[in-house]
């Protein structure tokens, strides 16, 4: 399916260098925020909470949640801003005029989102070590979840960038849909602490499965079946990827 590997590499490199060249805006802010969350909620407040119900310290519980939260938002923000700015300045034509297939175009743009998600997620883990030193229980499973979840949200970012007509619309999905679903998906709380009806509703929230997948990979503790988490992530990653390729193929807001 890849007939122009040099082209894909060039596009991927451009996308990765773009966010690395402004790391003070793209990589470090989530690390600082995570550190503050860990200190305030995990250390200052968390030590006063009886959290034995989850089988972890409160700090140990929120670290995987914060990793998932920033993985999702970094992947989404990278592709949404990059593609939207390319549409805004119309330099997306550089890519559209090239002999990259639509599959390859999406793959190249995706690389930046996935790379930024992985860098930020790993960074959150590293800054957590002085406060909550913990080994990763299932590293390959963690890698699986990091990759599938970042693919989902990097593709979602591209969809958002194609849909948006201005900078206001660009932020709508992230602010009003993705962030609330992440926070309700169990970054800071286990499902068992919620009322029964909210617990049932939460099971329709895909973030719940992503956060639990990452938490299980790190700690061996999860509210949800790990097989369901893994399958949800895989199906959504494949579905979102091919839907994004389809949008490029029909030229949705890319071709006149």
């Amino acid at each position, binding site marked *: 399916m890849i007939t122009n590997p040099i*082209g894909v590499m060039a596009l991927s490199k451009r996308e990765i260098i773009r966010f690395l060249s402004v790391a003070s805006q793209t990589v470090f802010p989530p690390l600082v925020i995570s550190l503050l969350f860990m200190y305030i909620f995990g250390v200052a407040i968390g030590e006063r909470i009886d959290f034995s119900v989850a089988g972890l310290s409160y700090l140990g519980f929120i670290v995987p949640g914060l990793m998932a939260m920033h993985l999702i938002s970094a992947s989404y923000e990278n592709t949404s801003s990059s593609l939207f700015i390319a549409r805004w300045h119309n330099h997306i034509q550089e890519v559209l*005029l090239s*002999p990259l297939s639509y599959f390859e175009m999406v793959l190249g743009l995706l690389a930046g989102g996935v790379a930024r998600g992985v860098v930020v997620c790993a960074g959150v883990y590293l800054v957590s070590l002085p406060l909550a030193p913990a080994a990763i229980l299932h590293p390959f499973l963690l890698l699986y979840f990091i990759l599938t979840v970042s693919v989902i949200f990097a593709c979602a970012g591209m969809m958002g960038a194609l849909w948006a007509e201005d900078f206001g619309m660009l932020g709508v999905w992230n602010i009003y849909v993705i962030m609330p679903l992440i926070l309700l998906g169990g970054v800071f709380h286990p499902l068992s602490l919620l009322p029964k009806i909210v617990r049932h509703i939460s099971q329709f929230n895909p973030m719940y499965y992503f956060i639990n997948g990452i938490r299980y990979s790190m700690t061996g503790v999860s509210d949800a079946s790990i097989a369901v988490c893994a399958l949800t992530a895989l199906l959504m990653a494949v579905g979102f990827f091919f839907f994004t390729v389809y949008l490029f193929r029909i030229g949705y807001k890319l071709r006149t």
Partner: protein
Amino acid sequence: MRDSERAVSIQNLTKYYGKFQALDNISFEIRRGDFFAFLGPNGAGKTTTINVITGLSNFQQGCVKVFGYNTTSEYIQTRRLVGLCAQEFNFDPFLTIHQLLVYQAGYFGILPQEASRRTDELLDRFQLIDKRNVKHRALSSGMKKRLLICRALIHDPEILILDEPTAGCDLELKFLIWDYLTQLNNEGKTIFLTTHYMEEAERLCKTIGIINHGRIVRIGNKQDVLKDKSLEAVFLEVTGLE
């Protein structure tokens, strides 16, 4: 190339923007090695035709081929053969002009070392080499025009499409571009040029097509189109602007 004689072949092309018909069943061919001027008033359909050939626009009806390859179903092959110098300065604002061209070459499957060599060669040819490490915003509009041409040529396309390349250029730059286009055409490259400058078309081109309200109103080799008239007189006559 599947058809080495016909650089562009357009048959019964119709294009709508919503309810507005931008192209009305147009058909024409451009021979390999031709220097083709595509003329018409503003809004006549010149840029739309270019966008269809390059794959930047969808269309409702017809068939467009570049060297025998269908621009819709075989777009990967056609895009390798076409270089577009657009009207607007649509450059990535985060890159230096050298990076910009090296990445562009990369998308065409050219390895970084070769891409860098070609980039320096083109920047030198278009007198931009001392600006290689600046971003496009620091360039004058004439320099940006030259950069557009460099970008269109970076993958050594068989056909170069230029949408009003000398609009707003001073005389020196105009002559530089004319010389280079003539040289490219002499080397065998097919050139597709839109312009509002009649003297430019008359001086450079071998074949002339005129479009008005989305319809081809005159097409043929320069002598047949002009007969004993000036291009301006022919243009005004066939577009009804007289």
